[in-house]
């Protein structure tokens, strides 16, 4: 397609000439904005007719168009960072599921302050008694570290190659959300062994939540199960880490990759 902006179809002018209510205007503006980026019209039709009559054409590849075949191969690792973070995510999911067989999210069993709790004991048990458990926890931890690193580098690559520009704004925002959720993943996992550092990291979390005006106390209740740390905190972090976040993050990753699929890779050059 020619790369000039086309003004023949000025949807916004059409919108203005329509004399619509505020609701209709808002609806149409949103619809047009999304359709410009995601071509909903094509996919809606696909849904209705249930087979591909839409114009799915393979474009001439960018490298071919600009004769870059032998000039950009050394950038390839930077373009595989998104894929690498998914690989690390899958590795963490598999090793995490296996850790979940042995881990107990409980603060019971501490006779006095500072004694090992059931959660801490189960971590020690995993590392000392379970066959391959020491390596398993190490793999889970390092997979998480690599995932976070890959996600950050992925964001930098997208930023410095301008790959977030129109029509990919939605995916950029989705990426920001995914980074935040990844960090939350890391944080909730950090709390689970119920070590000194886990406890005090969570303590900082509670203090931050309580410092927030209006929603602070509610957020502290929701995330940490109260204003002081204890059994409720650990269980909430556990459910967040092994139930809520996996579903949400996996779904968002699927949408993230799906949009890349629909819109195509941002041209590398």
């Amino acid at each position, binding site marked *: 397609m020619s790369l000039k902006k086309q003004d023949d179809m000025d949807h916004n002018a059409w919108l203005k000439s329509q004399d619509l209510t505020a609701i209709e205007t808002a609806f149409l503006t949103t619809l047009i904005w999304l359709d410009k980026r995601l071509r909903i019209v094509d996919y809606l039709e696909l849904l209705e007719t249930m087979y591909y009559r839409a114009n799915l054409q393979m474009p001439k590849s960018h490298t071919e168009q600009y004769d870059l075949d032998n000039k950009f191969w050394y950038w390839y690792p930077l373009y595989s960072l998104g894929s690498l973070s998914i690989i690390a995510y899958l590795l963490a999911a598999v090793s995490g599921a296996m850790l979940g067989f042995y881990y107990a999210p409980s603060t019971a069993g501490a006779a006095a302050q500072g004694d090992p709790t059931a959660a801490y004991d189960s971590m020690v048990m995993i590392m000392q008694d379970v066959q391959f458990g020491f390596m398993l926890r190490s793999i889970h931890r390092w997979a998480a570290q690599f995932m976070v690193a890959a996600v950050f580098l992925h964001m930098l690559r997208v930023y410095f190659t301008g790959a977030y520009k129109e029509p990919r704004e939605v995916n950029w925002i989705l990426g920001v959300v995914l980074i935040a959720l990844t960090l939350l993943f890391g944080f909730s996992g950090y709390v689970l062994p119920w070590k000194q550092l886990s406890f005090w990291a969570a303590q900082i979390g509670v203090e*931050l939540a309580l410092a927030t005006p209006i929603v602070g106390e509610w957020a502290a209740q929701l995330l940490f199960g109260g204003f002081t740390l204890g059994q409720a905190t650990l269980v909430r972090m556990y459910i967040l880490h092994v139930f809520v976040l996996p579903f949400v993050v996996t779904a968002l990753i699927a949408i993230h990759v799906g949009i890349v699929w629909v819109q195509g890779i941002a041209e590398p*050059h």
Partner: protein
Amino acid sequence: MTDETTPMTDGGTDEEARTDGGPPATVPPDDETPTWSERKERSQGLAQLTYQYFERSRREDEDLRAESTYVERDVLGFPTWPHETIRNLAITSFFLGIILLVASILPSHFGDPANPGSTPAIILPDWYLYWSFGLLKLSPINPELAVLGGNIIVSNELYGLIAHGAIFGVITLVPFLNKGNARRPVEEPGWAALGVTGVILAITLAALAIQNFFPVPLELLFSLTFMLPIAGGVITYAVLKTMREGYMYDLNRRYYMLRPPK
């Protein structure tokens, strides 16, 4: 499909001379499938507006395709099998191998069990949250009001939270602030400089978070936290501006015919 240049019986291709009315204006749909406009027409409300807009959208697509000089053809590229598959397998196994290697030589530690009664001397999250932890140590620049007798306006924790919000907000807004077709850092030195500033700021904030491990005086570290990113940004800007001319000249000529730089 109807080919407009199909020779007619008299050898001519003049569309005006045809008696059968010429090719249809649009590609006819399959027999079973009703056309978009034949489908139940929504007659009211948002459904009708949606319908009207999609009609326009489809027409726009057709117009764009008709005007386009773009040649459709098969992609000549890297074959999926075996080349791309082998390459992806190689990258994946290499990456997994690195994770397993690091996991085996740097195992995770036990640490002391949680003790609500004794605060450890050093509290740290994982490395990827250092920048965030550093943002919570910005209390020296938390503004205070003289009318309140030098009291701070917001608590230091809330100040750190607001800093988080500001950073995430700016990052989210990037695609809406930076428009245009430019892709390479040399094409937009300002944005590249902003990016480098952000990266260095994340690193210096991380350093601020683990200040206990630095032999540097705290005040100096605090100043460096903000001076280094700015210096990095300025240097990046200067370097890219200098590179720009020579670099632009070398860029593929056809590329710039298609996409003039802003």
